């Protein structure tokens, strides 16, 4: 499926490990359970981990320097655990690579994802990027600090968005 990043739709070059098959060459996302296998892979592709909503990000701590991408998953848009996972990856584990969000996500959640440290969203084919961009531009102020360390807006915890 395509990827939305910085308001643009682009092709997703990452492959997702298929259960029961050996890992392909090239950039691959593996589930947490296959992390060791991914780390042991010979080849020139990049490695990423596909987290499920119930996974602990702490389990990535040791491997994280060797990961280029972590995908958090929303089984349904109401299940907000992915926000905490993304924020923890940035704040606790100081992860500098790509964090993408996949699963059932609404454009109305896009800004929250970005502010939790997500870079890109896996979106359905044919999606209208302008709806997501509009959601991103809906607000010019936020009321709490976030991992993006936005500039203060006036006083208190207010932050300038955009």
């Amino acid at each position, binding site marked *: 499926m395509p990827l939305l990043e910085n308001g643009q739709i682009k092709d997703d070059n990452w492959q997702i490990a298929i259960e029961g098959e050996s890992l392909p060459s090239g950039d691959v996302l593996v589930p947490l359970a296959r992390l060791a296998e991914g780390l042991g892979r010979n080849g020139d592709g990049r490695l990423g981990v596909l987290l499920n909503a119930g996974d602990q990000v702490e389990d990535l701590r040791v491997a994280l320097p060797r990961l280029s991408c972590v995908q958090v998953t929303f089984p349904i*848009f*109401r*299940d*907000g*655990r992915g*926000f*905490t*996972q993304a*924020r*923890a990856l940035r*704040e*606790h584990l100081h992860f500098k690579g790509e964090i993408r969000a996949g699963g059932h996500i*609404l454009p*109305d*959640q896009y*800004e*929250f*994802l970005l*502010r*939790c440290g997500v870079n890109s969203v896996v979106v359905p084919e044919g999606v209208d990027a302008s709806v997501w961009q*509009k959601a991103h531009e*809906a*607000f*010019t*102020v*936020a*009321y*709490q*600090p*976030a991992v993006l*360390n936005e500039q203060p*807006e*006036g*006083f*208190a*915890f*207010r932050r300038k968005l955009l």
Partner: protein
Amino acid sequence: MSHAPHSPLPVGHYAYDEVDRTFLKQRVAQFRDQVERRISGALTEEEFKPLRLMNGLYLQLHAYMLRVAIPYGILNSGQMRALAQIAQRYDRDYGHFTTRQNIQFNWIRLEDTPDILALLADADMHAIQTSGNCIRNVTADQFAGAAADEVLDPRVHAEILRQWSTLHPEFTFLPRKFKIAISGSPQDRVAARFHDIGLMARNGENGRPVFEVYVGGGLGRTPIVGVKLRDDLPEEDLIAYLEAILRVYNEFGRRDNIYKARIKILVQALGVDEFRDRVNAEFVAMDRARYRLDERIVAAIRARFGVPDFDPAGQAAEKLAQQRKADRAFDFWVRTNTHAHKQPGYVSVTISCKPAGGIPGDVTSSQMNLLADLADQLSFGELRITHLQNVVLGHVRQDKLYGLWQTLEQNGLGTANVGFITDIVACPGLDYCALANARSIPIAQKLSERFASPDLQREIGPLRLNISGCINACGHHHAGHIGILGVDKRGEEAFQITLGGAADQDTVSIGQIIGAAMSEDETVDAIARIIDTYLARRTAGEQFIETCRRLGTAPFKDAAYATA
């Protein structure tokens, strides 16, 4: 008029600036777009539901209901007039004050809601996070900034929490709703231990506030008294520590069953020690500097709160004393409906929204406009909604009370029953709510009629009576000295009685069901017999709840089920 009704800053609550107003306009535009996407079909009802809920819009039995936020219960007169306008223009000319110090409009059309939100935004109001699985309106003591027994005004911190929780990127899709209450008085008037987080503020040794932190309390299907996590959380760590609690909850709270999804269930499942360990681990690991509540932040928020410019007490107390002596009915009203103020010559007044036979918490648009006028004339333009569904004028000079009472009397707002048996808290029940098993309003009205006699109510003394139309317990029946719970008994509406609940700081307890459900009329009669039993068996000066604790429920149960 002894003081100007329009000070530059609103008294008792945070003054919006242009940044805040721009934000609200953007929020309205966002919701307008969401409504359009719903109507066009771009959003499914399932997808639209949490979005509308986060703007306070519920679908009830007969219509949409809009719940408007009243942060920490404080309104200015202009905001009250905006609510009156909504009642008149978009609803059936009334609104309903809720147990979370908010107001609900029960007959709203979906297509009107963007315009209503725009009207609210013009008055610096909104409906953000009055529903949904997010951090809800933060409630505070209705006598904040006025009460003689207060150590510090909790509203500045309530506002800081309101801002911090507004569209919080991480905590807007929690397992379940999340309610925070804050009190600045050792007399807990916010039911702190019946909240997801309850905060009791006091002054610390360095002169800066510290907070007792309770977590995991709540009513609903599983009533649980909150447990203390911290005794002395420093002010600068308030946001960081709450972040830590919410992070643990968001990660580990159950999502497979909505009846097991509140934080209280997580705290019980992990045990308080394990829960505290996880919160502390998060707290230690986090970037504390990012979340530090600097003294300057508190000062900046405080600077946007207007404070009353009190007049000297003069002869106010003497004049009031004379008027009380001269008019017995007035004297009774003063006894029940006023609360001691820290400023000499002033009192806080609770205006009862529970007239005999009335619907608890319902107020008409003309009453709202009257309340706004009275606030301008007598209380620095400030109004407060209480979690017991009444309205408070926080700062009234004692020599103005008599005139105030007379005006209230003439407008159906002079009932002298605050804290008495007819000061009933009731949920909307089956008249409105799709979840309810029984109607709460008619039984509330019958009880209110039954005990309408002022003499009888005074004889009975302080008594909390709460009514919920189903086990979700929005009427907080477990916390009532007498609680009534609506159930479905083979397709008929029926009611169970609970006794012995209390939400006071030192004596928090959960009411216990005394027996099988009865019909509406049988329940009213049973409660009358329970009251007779109390009157017959109490010792001198003993309140209902004390007699109940001393004797246990057995004699009351016998009385309730005794048939003639």
